């Protein structure tokens, strides 16, 4: 109700702008209002429209007329150019027509309603903080009626407080967290609300405007993240913005096979499956097949020059030649390999690349001496990577309380949702409770579980530029039993044995022993 009321007022304010301004901008302003109201509440937007109204009529129109000598008392001209009713004061012989009276009444009403709504919002915020007390004969107790709070929440009124006083919202503490750049506009009078999905997809794609590399954290084995990536592929304009996708779940030894597959060639399943089955990690890439298959489908719809190339990011390990941990460790400089591939494919060819890799490779962890991928790239090309952390609630993701706090700070519980971190309240949250996957590090010669303490003293904005918030994790892995007794099953067992020996020898940051780790 209050939402539609605020929208009604906003439309009212727009309709009071000069007709030429309305005709040019009102539709788009209302669209922006619909989008932004969800993020920051209606009060600031109403205030902004009110200031715009004042500028348009008083500063622009009135002063222009004054300075060009058009401020005439001629009744004929004033009927054409009249501004507010004050012109009528100078023209006592003319009558104020009914529409102008209605317009005047509306303006008066708005001047009263907007400050009132500001006061109301301020009260709601204060009550939500529990800071308002009701004094009764010297006693005070918290005035926190749950019914009132609930109504305030349902009303959609902003809890952010005061009306913006400048010409911009530059002093606001709550930074814009959404990038809905490509969202559909809304018709005046439409009650349609844009799907949150669009926000997330547009968020990721918008990042390509300023960055050649957008790195999306892949929580291995998470079906929800996998489905998001597939939907991202199918977004209109994806192929216009992205040239290459570099995926951790791909053995570069088979790059030619992968190229042939992506170009629509006939490739036997066993041959293409080697791309994700034979990586240096074991059991992390079960969800890869579907993604590769979807890229191939997208490519079928694109002209040759626009086809998306998929690059295998994992070192070219040949498992036929790996017989011991020492053989395997030779291929474990995975970040250096990925960095050199990206240097060649992105910077030397000026391409746009979506990198999909486990978060540990991507986060900017300044306390970690290990040269992870983003560190390596940005050493040579500072600020070239836009890192998107994938955040979801669940045993391997964020703790419930951390997740709830993040959603509270973002002002939304919609998923999927894209939000920028830099300078925002969400970005200032402690990073550790958001990453609960088991990680072991070698500390004083011993493998130690450092789960939940990976980023000492670091906030989310230290690690990444933005986040993608997904629904609860849904781990989907192929049951190893289906391979039992098969040659591939025996090979997997052999690789696991080699990995467990190899991990014990790695330092200081071994790859995680659990398949759900990055």
């Amino acid at each position, binding site marked *: 109700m209050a939402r539609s009321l605020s929208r009604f007022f906003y439309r009212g304010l727009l309709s009071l702008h000069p007709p030429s301004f309305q005709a*040019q901008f009102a539709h*788009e302003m209302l669209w922006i209002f619909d989008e932004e109201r969800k993020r920051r509440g209606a009060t600031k937007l109403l205030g*902004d429209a009110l200031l715009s109204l004042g500028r348009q009529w008083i500063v622009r129109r009135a002063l222009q007329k004054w300075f060009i000598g058009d401020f005439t008392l001629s009744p004929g001209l004033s009927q054409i150019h009249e501004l507010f009713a004050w012109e009528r004061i100078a023209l006592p012989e003319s009558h104020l027509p009914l529409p102008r009276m209605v317009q005047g009444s509306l303006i008066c009403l708005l001047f009263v309603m907007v400050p009132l709504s500001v006061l109301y919002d301020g009260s709601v915020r204060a009550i939500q903080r529990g800071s308002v007390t009701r004094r009764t004969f010297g006693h005070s107790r918290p005035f926190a009626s749950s019914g009132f709070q609930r109504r305030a929440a349902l009303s959609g009124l902003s809890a952010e407080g005061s009306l913006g006083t400048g010409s911009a919202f530059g002093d606001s503490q709550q930074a814009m967290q959404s990038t809905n750049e490509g969202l559909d506009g809304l018709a005046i009078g439409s009650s349609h609300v844009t799907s949150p999905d669009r926000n997330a997809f547009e968020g990721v794609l918008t990042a390509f405007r*300023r960055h050649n590399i957008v790195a999306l954290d892949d929580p291995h084995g998470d079906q929800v993240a996998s489905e998001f990536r597939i939907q991202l592929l199918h977004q209109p304009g994806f192929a216009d913005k992205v040239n290459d996708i570099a995926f951790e779940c791909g053995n570069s030894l088979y790059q030619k096979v992968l190229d042939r597959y992506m170009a629509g060639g006939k490739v036997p399943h066993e041959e293409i499956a080697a791309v994700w089955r034979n990586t240096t990690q074991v059991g992390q890439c079960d969800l890869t097949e579907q993604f590769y298959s979807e890229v191939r489908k997208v490519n079928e719809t694109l002209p040759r020059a626009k086809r998306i190339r998929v690059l295998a990011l994992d070192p070219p390990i040949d498992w036929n030649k790996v017989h011991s941990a020492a053989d395997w460790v030779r291929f474990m400089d995975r970040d250096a390999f990925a960095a050199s591939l990206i240097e060649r494919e992105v910077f030397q060819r000026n391409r746009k690349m979506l990198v999909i890799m486990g978060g540990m490779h991507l986060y900017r962890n300044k306390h970690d001496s290990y040269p992870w991928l983003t560190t390596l790239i940005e050493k040579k090309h500072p600020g070239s990577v836009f890192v998107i952390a994938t955040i979801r609630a669940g045993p391997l993701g964020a703790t419930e309380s951390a997740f709830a706090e993040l959603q509270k700070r973002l002002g939304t519980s919609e998923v999927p949702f894209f939000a920028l971190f830099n300078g925002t309240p969400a970005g200032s949250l402690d990073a550790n409770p958001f990453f609960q996957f088991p990680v072991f590090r070698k500390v004083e010669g011993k493998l130690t579980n450092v789960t939940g303490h990976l980023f000492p003293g670091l906030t989310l904005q230290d690690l990444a530029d933005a986040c993608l918030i997904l629904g609860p994790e849904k781990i989907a892995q192929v049951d190893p039993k289906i391979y039992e007794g098969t040659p591939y099953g025996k090979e997997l067992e052999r690789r696991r044995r080699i990995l467990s020996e190899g991990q014990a020898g790695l330092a200081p940051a071994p790859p995680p022993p659990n398949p759900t780790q990055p």
Partner: protein
Amino acid sequence: MKQDISQFVPLSPAAFHILLALAGDELHGYGIMQEIVQQSAGKYRLGPGTLYDNLQRLMEKGLIEEAARRSGATDPRRRYYRLTALGRRVLSTEVERLEGMLQEARTHLRALKPRRT
């Protein structure tokens, strides 16, 4: 005939940010707002009223213009804007002016630093 650029500078912060946002690409109104947020790392935000008021003024002055409608655009009502050649020259002049001011400010700050004896 070349226009006198000096009449356009200094630019207001809002106008400067809008021109800067459009320096890279054609954008629609909401895109400009998003770009400004990114450019300023979330520290400067325009409301839609302020944005369109400035867009109108900048168009009147010939610093920006409406770009052609995009075929296949999801919403035909969405308008895209771009810098004109004049707008680009004004932006460059303003950037040079700001650079000069910054240099001057730094020189003064250095001069004001207490000297160790």
